[in-house]
């Protein structure tokens, strides 16, 4: 089966007063229909820019992108504006982090939904309104018939995010890009939204690209995970591989620095220092200044994504030999695992 979305060697750079910022620097991944891929990393690692580039939403004035974004086999990276407009909202939809700033405050929710429908379908306004009501019902907004005429400020945070999802799903897209969809929400609301997204995915067979910095959210929703650091992919694999046998020291750091609900740990493993500036990233492996396992080769050569010998779907970009990695990963997670099972 060919992938629905195939991103190959994607690069995006912004021209700024201080020079070129390479916000995405050679990213590859694929998404299949009905699957969820999670992109994780800290702020500024290029997660969001990757998705904006896929959607063709970067400002063209100071941005240059290269590589390929194959959607159903069609390269949409260099597609014309009108082609992109016919895809966006119809075939590919996006949910943003902050539902208040991404809904238009001066139009009713219903009007915004109707607009999305009418843009891509040749139907009457009355029919479109019917669909809008159905969409709100499907995402679980109570009294959808009345709420369709409400303004966004009359909705609570969770309901706004539901309305955003309704808007994204109303034309039954094949691909849904969700950029930190639950970051601004409380845990109970987050659980509601995540299970809603899962249900919609099961019903419609939508592929989801889920961008988040919350590893818990990724573990619960994604089938595959891409870990990004400083504009590059450092590790990629199935969700089980990433969480049970991580291969890259940065992934170890991320997992180790997580306070856990299921374990009492006295001291968190911390990654020293700060993520580097993308204006002037470190030579060699970009993680080497913060890495506890740094070797001479890391400072000179850039590690490529390579397959892990025992798992064909698992790739990582680190020079450490596999034996050391298996040993270190086991040592680092022995504490958490032991505490997790006893606690």
């Amino acid at each position, binding site marked *: 089966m060919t992938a629905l979305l195939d991103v190959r060697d994607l690069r995006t750079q912004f021209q700024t007063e201080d020079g070129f910022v390479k916000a995405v620097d050679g990213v590859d991944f694929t998404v299949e229909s009905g699957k969820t891929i999670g992109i994780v990393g800290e702020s500024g690692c290029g997660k969001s820019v990757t998705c904006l580039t896929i959607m063709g939403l970067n400002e063209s004035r100071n941005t240059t992108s290269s590589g390929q974004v194959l959607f159903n086999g069609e390269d949409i990276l260099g597609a014309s504006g009108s082609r992109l407009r016919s895809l966006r909202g119809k075939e590919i939809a996006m949910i943003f982090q902050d539902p208040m700033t991404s809904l238009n405050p001066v139009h009713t929710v219903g009007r915004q939904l109707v607009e999305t429908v009418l843009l891509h379908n040749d139907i009457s306004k009355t029919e479109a309104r019917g669909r809008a009501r159905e969409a709100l019902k499907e995402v679980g907004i109570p009294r959808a018939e009345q709420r369709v005429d409400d303004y966004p400020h009359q909705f609570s945070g969770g309901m706004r995010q539901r309305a955003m999802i309704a808007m994204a799903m109303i034309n039954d897209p094949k691909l849904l890009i969700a950029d930190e969809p639950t970051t601004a929400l409380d845990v*109970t609301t987050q659980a509601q939204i995540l299970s809603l997204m899962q249900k919609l995915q099961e019903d419609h067979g939508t592929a989801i690209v889920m961008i988040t910095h919350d590893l818990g959210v990724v573990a619960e929703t994604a089938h595959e995970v891409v870990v990004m650091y400083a504009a590059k992919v450092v590790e990629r694999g199935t969700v089980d591989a990433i969480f049970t046998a991580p291969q890259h020291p940065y992934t170890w750091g991320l997992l180790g620095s997580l306070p856990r609900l299921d374990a009492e740990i006295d001291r968190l493993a911390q990654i020293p220092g700060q993520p580097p500036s993308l204006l002037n990233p470190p030579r060699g492996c970009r993680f080497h200044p913060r890495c506890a396992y740094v070797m001479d080769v890391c400072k000179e050569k850039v590690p490529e994504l390579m397959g892990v010998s025992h798992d064909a779907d698992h790739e990582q970009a680190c020079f450490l030999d596999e034996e050391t990695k298996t040993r270190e990963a086991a040592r680092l997670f022995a504490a958490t695992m032991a505490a997790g099972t006893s606690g």
Partner: protein
Amino acid sequence: MADELLVVEGLKKHFPVTRGIIFQRQIDAVRAVDGVSFTLNEGETLGVVGESGCGKSTMARCLLKLIEPTEGKIVFRGRDISKLSRREMRPLRREMMMVFQDPYASLNVRKRVGFIVAEALEVHGIATPAERKRRVQSLLEVVGLNPEHYNRFPHEFSGGQRQRIGIARALAINPTLIVCDEPVSALDVSVQAQILNLLKDLQREFGLTYIFIAHDLNVVRHISDRVMVMYLGKPVELASRTELYTAPKHPYTGALLAAVPIPDPALGRLRQRVVLEGDVPNPINPPAACNFHPRCPRFHEGHCDVDTPELRNVAGHAHTAACHYPLEKWPMTPEEIRYDRSRTAAVGS
């Protein structure tokens, strides 16, 4: 007990809702904090969790008297401070400091780091200027910054470093109590771990007492000795960290715990997700009796919506919850959580 640092009794803060321009009359009140009582021992960390709008931050501001509480007693080191005037409060302010959520908004962008950290020393007239400078530089080192950063401006620092400046400022006058209001929620996980470790180290070194407010249950479990769960301005459960996380009694605590995503796909798949319906109600017009009853899976008509449950001992020593039908075990499946009339009637009477 001798080492009680802070005793809070029936703390309330109601913000008036007024109508009219010239003749403002109060038509209602937002019950932001509505009857909070707890005791804080010296050297411990009390975690406070709850969803946004449940009154966590308002409570913190009341405790430090940054806003005047409407009702209730705040006893700090055996002295009731709830009625003290601003002037009477001033000497006490040396004992209590606050670390704020947003490290971008809580530092004055026009002042140098040295001034920001030293300001409290200056206000309280502690030490000569030269001593102050030395103290600030050593504080910067304590929180993991470079003493040479003394003359820099806040914009030259990253989020994590700014939060370190905020912590250095709170430490400057050797307080006993530090109220941390969501100190790590604006930070990335790797930086969050650095700050949490720093707070723990400082507590050990200086014998600090923390009130740690957060909405992230993982973070609260990591740092707290005891945890208080709030819902709509009221504490619904208060227990030691281990008990609260392994044997929660209030259905709301259970729902919160069940909603937290676990960073372990195998465990996550095993777990039954209990999804809480609906949103937090409006604190102007909270539901009658138990605030949680409209969303509660164990709701018992004619009891929960009539009779207000008080915080009472439900298990072990000092594990209190405000619920008529506390959870019997944990974890529970959604079916078990749902109230079963026959079973509860048999056990309840």
